[in-house]
């Protein structure tokens, strides 16, 4: 029977062993990956077309100018989506026969905008709405139409995320709130929604990352965002390195968000375990 010190030494050795194996397998994995691309018959051509250092330097600045627009779109759209989607989710959970038409409307909205590809919404909103000739719906700024399209589509997705959160709150919570004399609205406001939102933060961030990538579709309306800037660069130089630059910017923005999501999921799990244990 080993003493306490012996156990620690054993654990320490085991940890070192694991670390060694992990490092080794990572190195081998990356080596295989690199070898696969470097030994491809067209490796040189791919490098010239997509990873040319000179073009990387030349396209970095115009693509960044475009990427700033992507970030603006993403932040503005997310702000609208978080509010609009919650409204839709709450409306969908309204009680009573009188609110039936409102519930139907919320269901129709989510069904429709989750079903229609964003690219079509962008075209229909961006080229159709200004054609209506309605003064307050008319702007010469395609950013606004792009923003509206993103908000319309992503609100439908996010409303479903909220709804899942709301419906995951046990009915006993609502029953308890109502028996304390809270109205439906009050129990939603003070009991259900705060718990629901906390539960769905990871999937919300996931949709946020999706939204961030889809901002590139606004280029269809003539906005010179990063993907379109990369395309313009390719059209003039016949070199696609600009796309690699744009991809890199997107990934660099996504990774911190993805890690944040992981952290929140992990924290949530730890909490649950602590409660359950």
């Amino acid at each position, binding site marked *: 029977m080993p003493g306490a010190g012996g156990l620690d030494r054993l654990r320490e050795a085991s940890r070192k062993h694991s670390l060694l194996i992990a490092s080794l397998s990572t190195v081998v994995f990356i080596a295989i990956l690199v070898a696969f691309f470097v030994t491809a018959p067209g490796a040189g051509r791919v490098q010239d077309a997509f990873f040319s250092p000179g073009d990387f330097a030349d396209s970095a600045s115009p693509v960044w100018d475009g990427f700033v627009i992507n970030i603006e779109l993403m932040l503005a759209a997310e702000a609208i989506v978080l509010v609009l989607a919650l409204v839709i989710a709450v409306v969908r959970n309204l009680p009573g026969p009188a609110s039936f038409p409102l519930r139907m409307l919320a269901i129709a909205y989510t069904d429709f905008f989750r079903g229609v590809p964003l690219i079509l919404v962008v*075209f229909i909103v961006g*080229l159709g709405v*200004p*054609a209506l000739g309605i003064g307050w719906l008319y*702007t*010469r700024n*395609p950013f606004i139409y792009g923003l509206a399209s993103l908000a319309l589509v992503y609100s439908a997705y996010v409303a479903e995320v909220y709804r899942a959160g709301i419906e995951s709150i046990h009915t006993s919570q609502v029953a308890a709130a109502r028996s304390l004399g809270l109205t439906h609205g009050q129990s939603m406001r003070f009991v259900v929604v705060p718990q629901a939102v906390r539960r769905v933060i990871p999937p919300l961030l996931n949709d946020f990352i999706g939204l961030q990538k889809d901002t590139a579709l606004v*280029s*269809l*309306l*003539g*906005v*010179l965002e990063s993907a*379109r800037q990369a*395309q*313009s660069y390719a*059209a*003039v130089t016949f070199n696609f390195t600009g796309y690699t630059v744009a991809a890199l910017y997107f990934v660099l923005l996504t990774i911190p968000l993805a890690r944040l999501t992981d952290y929140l999921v992990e924290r949530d799990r730890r909490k649950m375990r602590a409660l359950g244990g």
Partner: protein
Amino acid sequence: MRKLLVLALALFALSVLAAACGGDDDEGAPTTTAAPAGEETTTEAAPDLSGILQEDGVLIVGAEPPAPPFIIPPYPDDPTGFEVDVAREIGARLGIPEVRFIEFVWTNLFSPAPKPFDFDINETTITEERDEVVDFSDPYFEANQAVLVHTGSDAEQATSIADVAGLLLGAQEATTGLVYIRENIKPTQTERVFPTTAAANQALLNQTIDAFIIDLPIAAGLVAENPDELAVVGQFITNEEWGIVFEEGSGLVEHVNRVLQEMKDDGTLTELQEQYLPGTADVPAFE
């Protein structure tokens, strides 16, 4: 088995009949495409083209249809269009009794293979590289960049590059028009770049842009679709000229150039351009 045989025989008989009819057509009505205007327009006696043409008395013209309004089907039986009529007029003025159209894929134009046509007229821009492998006629059309605007807008008053530079411009990705905006016009507001002609056209109809810079013939087509709302107010001379393509060293080039010059001088070419590309013949050039 027997049924199949009968069917095969019937099909065979039909195809023979069809071939015979086709032959009839060729012999019976060779003049449908023949020179209609040989009479007064020719100023001098028809030149002797024997040995120059692939087939005596026939001008064989290659093109890849359809390309409205330049080449409009039914092709090759009874095509119309700007380039078709230019070819027919050239044939008439050279005193060639028949103009026959054949289908020739444009991308094969610069291959070293012998050409099955006397000339090919197919929106081909004259370039030095191409001139090394084929012969070009003098230009019959200038594919300049048009300034397409919405009627009744301020942009309609533009008369110079400086005026255009102050407008909110639109262009299609990867076009000469976009390159021209960035390298020559240098507008004060960032241009809008659209993925398709249709999207840029709709933006102009919506008046979310002031002007759309696009090839003149395409602009003419868009005006034809919406004559009340769109207009070409000017063009930028980009020196993209279209020429008729001949096999390298063809003896026909000088004759075609001579009648082309006649057609320019007496206004026939302009008339044809106005007929098929209304509003493009007298577009003011912006500088």
